[in-house]
Every structure is written in structure tokens, then in C-alpha cells.
């Protein structure tokens, strides 16, 4: 599992789920905290479609932490200020890098639940999709109409 997928599942998960996974790791090893969880900023870089250039829309508060398990380092960066969850995520990352993490099936289960939740929410939004009914049988093609206007 790549880091983006791993961190996406963990970031979306309830902090108690993440804490439970971290607690499993702590049963067998003692991570060294290299960087205590603390707040910092991330600047958000966007690409606009008109001239295809880059700009910064603003910043977001993130919490970061770094740990080490038997020489394997792990980090976490998470939007918001949940220090405990960030530390737990760093521990999980270090365990993954050390090859000690055994919770992949749990991660996949969480991912399925998260995706289902997002898709249910998406269904709510899609219910507001407009079905246009033309009142003119000879309505012109939209794009062509716009060009003539």
C-alpha cells in the first residue's frame, strides 16, 4: 500500500481506530519520538486553468510528528491539531517502514467503510442533478448557440 493511500485511510479514520492500531504496535516495540507532535502550516499550491499557472490560495494548519522504531523512521502530517492522532499515525508509519505493521486488513476494511460513506453522501448531491427538458423541439446545440450569441 503506498503512502498516500495509507495516510488517506488513517486521516479519514476516527482517532480511536488509529489509536487502537498504534496500541497494537506499542505492545511489541518502543518507538522513540524524534519530533513531538506540534502545529505548523502548509501552504496550498493550486494550478489555475486559464493560464495554467501556479498560485497559493492560502494556508492550512497541520500537525506533524516523527518517530523511530529500531532505526526505521516514521512521520505523520495531518490537517488540524489532533496531536495524539498525529503521533499514532507516525508510529504506524514507522511500523510500516520497519515491516512490523500487521493491520493492513483493518485498513482495507476502514477504506471500504469510508468509501461507502462518501458514495452515500455523493448520492445525496447527485439527487440535485438537473434534468433539463427542452420546451422547443428544435433547440440548437448548446455550444453552437453560445458561439452565435
Amino acid at each position: 500500500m503506498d503512502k498516500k493511500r495509507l495516510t488517506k485511510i488513517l486521516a479519514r479514520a476516527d482517532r480511536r481506530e488509529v489509536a487502537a492500531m498504534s496500541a497494537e504496535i506499542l505492545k511489541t516495540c518502543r518507538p522513540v519520538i524524534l519530533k513531538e507532535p506540534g502545529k505548523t502550516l502548509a501552504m496550498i499550491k493550486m494550478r489555475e486553468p486559464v493560464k495554467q499557472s501556479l498560485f497559493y490560495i492560502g494556508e492550512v494548519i497541520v500537525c506533524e510528528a516523527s518517530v523511530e522504531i529500531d532505526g526505521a523512521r516514521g512521520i505523520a502530517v495531518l490537517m488540524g491539531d489532533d496531536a495524539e492522532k498525529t503521533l499514532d499515525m507516525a508510529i504506524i508509519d514507522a511500523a510500516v517502514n520497519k515491516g512490523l505493521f500487521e493491520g493492513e486488513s483493518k485498513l482495507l476494511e476502514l477504506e471500504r467503510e469510508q468509501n461507502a460513506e462518501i458514495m452515500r453522501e455523493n448520492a445525496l448531491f447527485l439527487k440535485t442533478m438537473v434534468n433539463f427538458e427542452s420546451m422547443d423541439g428544435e433547440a440548437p446545440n448548446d455550444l453552437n448557440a453560445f458561439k452565435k450569441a
Partner: protein
Amino acid sequence: MAYVAVSGGREAIEESIRLLDYHKSGTDKDIEIEAIENKLSLLVDRVMSEAGLYAKTYAALALKQCEGCVEEAVFLLRAYRSTLTRNYYTNEVDTEGMRIVRRVSAAFKDIVGGQILGATYDYTHRLIDFRIGEEIFEDARKNMQALLAAQTPEPVAPCPRVSDGLRKEGLLDVCAKNDQKPLDVTMNAPVFPAERSARLQTLARADTGFVSGLAYSSLRGFGQAHPTVGELRCGYAELCVPYLFDENESVYIGEILLTEVECFNAADDTDRLKLTAGYGAVFGRNENKAIAMAVLDRELDAGGRYPAQNEEFVLTHGDSLEMNGFISHLKLPHYVTFQSKLDAVRKTRGTEHE
């Protein structure tokens, strides 16, 4: 008149600050931060946008602290932000792939991906609903959760931009990707003519009322003709930062809600016409600001004699903190400078009243 330094008022100031709580003490009821964050979310979005800081809970906290005053809340967030380091820059945010919650086009009725109204006040009756005063929010939440749980999941599909079709047809200019590092106006004040990145960042952070008013002036005739909203999209965009130990990996840090707009205008293209586009993007659900930003982006590209087309005018007068700070300072003691003005006026009027 000699210059006389004065001091005083310390106790009065302390009492004045204490009195702020008096204005909040008219009820035993408190308003929870979570309630502000979720029930006044458009206000929270506005504060985050104008502060240039996406932090919902802190924006809600700031609003509670200052009795819902937008400019004070912006000030508080900016001040807090200045105490933090900035250790990360996100990867380029893919707004084309955003999880759409609302998307409309005023240019075409049939767009790939469809027109999704999402949640909007556009079609509501603007009549005060007095039942809200008696609403039991627990029930409202339970009802919505039940509604959500009853949905049949629908896969999330990214929607291509409306402007893509026009570019393919050659009606809109196609630009190559420009990877020039953006200017950061929080670190460097823009010089004029400003880089495009400075313009967009400044407008994204600008006061909603200022941006809207200027765009309105343009629509009323102090600028180009009526633009068309080619696409307004609101949705969740993923934020990722590079993974420290492997440059080929990235870390998902969360998602933010954004509103993005492209407006179209007709413009000369030597012996024929073409379309041009203006762009707006803001934190949260703040459609009018995003549309106004897109209008101003296009006005500034076009240039001209009106205020909305004057880059320095537009980009230096819309920052909430700066404008309100400057206006606010007018009420602070100006005893010496005003005395000087008074002396000058008196001199011109003779000495009969001395």
C-alpha cells in the same frame, strides 16, 4: 503649541476590555464552537477565506471571541497564523478531480458530468422561517443521518472543466503549463505590474464585500460587458505533501472545501472574436466572492480606465486586515495632529475668537 506627551487611560482600557464580556452576558446560554463551525459554516468559510487560513475550528473560535465580527476574527486568525512556522508546501492541488458537491454552468445547459445544484439558497423563498426558533436540532441531525444512511452509494466521478471543450474548439486560448514558482504575498508585497500568482492570492484573501462591490461596478458599466459564468464548482479537494523519506511518495493530509469559477467574455482576436476567461477560487462555499474574483481577474487582464481594471487599485485596497486596520486607526487619539490642523485653520480665520 509645544508637543506634550501624555499617558493615561490604562485602568479605563482594562475596564473597557472587561466590558466586552458584558455585551456577551445577556443570556445564560452559551454557543458551542462546534455549533458555530457547523451551523454558521458560511460565515466560518468567509473568515477562513479572508484570513487566508483554512482552519474551521479556529475560525469558529475566533468568531465566538469577537461576537461574530468578521474583521476581528480575520485579525485573530492572521495573528495566530503568524506564530506558527510553515514547514510544508502542498503538492499541486487537483481541483479538476475534486469531489463535487455543487456545479452549475450559466453558459451551457448540457455539460459533461451534469449540473448539480447541491445545497443552495438560490431557489429558496427569502422569508424568515419562524419555526427555526423552535427547531430541535438533535432531531434535524438524526433525520439527515437517517437520510444519508438510506442512500444507495454512487461512485464519485471527477467532472471535466466546461472550458476544456471550448479550448479543444480553439475558442479559448490554450496555454502551456507554467511551473514558475508562485509569489507569496504573505512574504513579499507584490510590485506592479503584479505577477498572476500575486493577483490570484491577493483576491482569494480579499474582503468579500470589497471584491463583490468592485465586480458589481464592472457589471454596471464601469468595465467590460456582462460576463457568463462558464462553470461554478464547489467541492472537496485533496491536499498532499511530499513524503519526507521518498520523493516518489506523498502524504495525504486532508481535504478542503473550495469554490472555483471560470467566467467567459468575448474579446477581439485580430479580425475576429474569441472567448477569454477569468478565474476565481476561494476557501469554502462562497460563490459570489469566487464569481467576483473571476470577473476582476478578467477585468485586470483587459485593463482600462475604470477602478476594477486598475491593478494597483484592486490589489492594494481589499485586504480585510489592512483596510479595517487603517480605517480603525482613525478613531484612536490624534490629538497632536488635529491640534496642528486646528492651528492652521485658526490662522486663516484671524484671531478674533482667541
